[in-house]
């Protein structure tokens, strides 16, 4: 099936839950209302004409400068039977973004959603095991958000020496803790 007829099929079944459709791009996509994504996913997999049994990729993108700013979750689907692909998108607010999980439909979504939670802070309702996956459990913040600022401290340790710190260290003051003691690289030149 081509993208337009896949969209037609979804729009016929879900009506206004399919918010928008863009068929004029490299890879056509449809925007789905976030609260309906689990039902749309289940339908896309179980319907014999669509049969999207494979979730190729689940990614999150942070559109900070768009008006209004939004978070996007992108689902790339593939069908082994019909060999067609389709892209679903869900638009979310940047703060407190949450939408239903699709791990009941595609088991691989479990880890993909954990990754999106870890790096973007998107909460997937009903997820069986929503923990951080790549970053340490005690990490604060979600680094792939566009407004992310590198922290100065991690667990009380300086991780980003500031120019002021470098100046103080050059003056002979001990900065940092234990092995994370910050010594400027050209220190030996002075001595």
């Amino acid at each position, binding site marked *: 099936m081509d993208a337009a007829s896949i969209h037609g099929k979804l729009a016929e079944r879900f009506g206004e839950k399919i918010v928008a459709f863009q068929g004029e791009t490299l890879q056509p996509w449809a925007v789905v209302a976030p609260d309906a994504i689990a039902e749309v996913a289940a339908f896309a997999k179980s319907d014999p004409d669509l049969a999207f049994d494979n979730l190729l990729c689940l990614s999150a993108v942070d559109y900070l400068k768009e008006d209004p700013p939004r978070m996007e979750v992108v689902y790339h689907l593939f069908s082994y039977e019909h060999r067609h692909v389709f892209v679903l998108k869900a638009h979310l607010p940047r703060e407190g973004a949450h939408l239903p999980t699709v791990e009941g439909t595609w088991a691989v979504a479990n880890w993909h959603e954990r990754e999106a939670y870890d790096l973007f802070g998107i909460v997937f309702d009903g997820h069986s095991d929503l923990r951080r996956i*790549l*970053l340490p459990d005690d990490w604060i913040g979600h680094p792939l958000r566009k407004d992310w600022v590198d922290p100065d401290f991690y667990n009380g340790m300086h991780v980003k020496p500031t120019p002021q710190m470098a100046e103080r260290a050059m003056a002979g003051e001990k900065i940092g803790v234990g092995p994370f003691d910050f010594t400027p690289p050209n220190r030996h030149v002075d001595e």
Partner: protein
Amino acid sequence: MSNQAYGWRVDEIDNDEMILNMGPQHPSTHGVLRIELRTDGEIVRAARPHIGYLHRCFEKHAESVDYPGVIPYTDRMDYVASMGNSLGYALAVEKLMGISVSPYVQTIRVIMAELQRIASHCIAVGTYGMDIGAFTPFLHLLRDREKILDLFEWTCGARLLYNYNWVGGVSHDVPEGFVKACRQFLREFDATTYPEMIDLLIKNKIFIKRTAAIGVCSPELAVSYDLTGPNLRGSGPPRDLRRDEPYLGYENYEFDVVVGEGKFGPRGSCFDRNWVRALEMKESAKILHQAVDRLEKMERADVHEKVPKRVKPAKGEVYARSEAPRGQLGYYVVADGTGVNPYRVKVKSPCFTAMSIFHVLAKGMMIADIIALIGSLDVVLGEIDR
């Protein structure tokens, strides 16, 4: 597919059960992977993998450099098969910009990709034998992998991380006499490496008994967890992007797609996944023979002809997949059309999804078989953690 047994609390653990930590320094975990095993004697009741020890936030790096600048970072994800990684990224950006490279560059890329596939499978099959306890095949295969690395070094100067596939071309043309050296390697491969590997390892009775009945993965489970590459083909579905959605002119080469046959046990076992890898090396050699013949007949062309002066795609996005040695490697690249940096690069790594199925397959196994399972999935932690 309930994952309730996947995260457990201390008070859920029986008196007879014990939590065993495997890794991150365990030699058979192929990198820094930690697995929590909930064991009852020698039997694994549940397993919980912990990844992220090698996380370098590739995706954040990619947003802070320009499009060509991402390529060296992609090399460092799957450091056993760097050519495949940079190729996938180059294909994605070329698709976004609408660049099509010349047949000469395509042939060079095919040769490099297939040489890399053989080198990567040498490591995969060799270390798998070593995990199980067969040391000799590992030495033989590493010896022959060196020859491929020599060819790469001769071409682009690097032995492991190449920065070879550029957007719109490759970094260096193949040197004078490359075709001859490549033929020499293929002769040696067909005459010694491949038959030696089959005789020493694949036909080894102990090896078969050790792997042919464990870690069985059904096709439905494999598709649901998005297993790709040799892991999927071991379970039966003959899915290979090189044949199904050809890129780089793969449709012009003759080769077979190897699938697991379940010769010595149920189909989709650890043995089958490894068997697919071993036999795929032969298919790659077949492609190489044809590609080298073609390259010889071609006139030398400028490999930088299509490399854009400034890589700045128009606003858009693309998800491009290619068949890397470990499975389908997908790059989701978003361009905002304003800056010279990618707005977002997401990598769907085949090892990431292969690791996510681990807790399902590991359930009910013996502890010693866990080693055989990890090896058969052929994960590279650099690519899982990115």
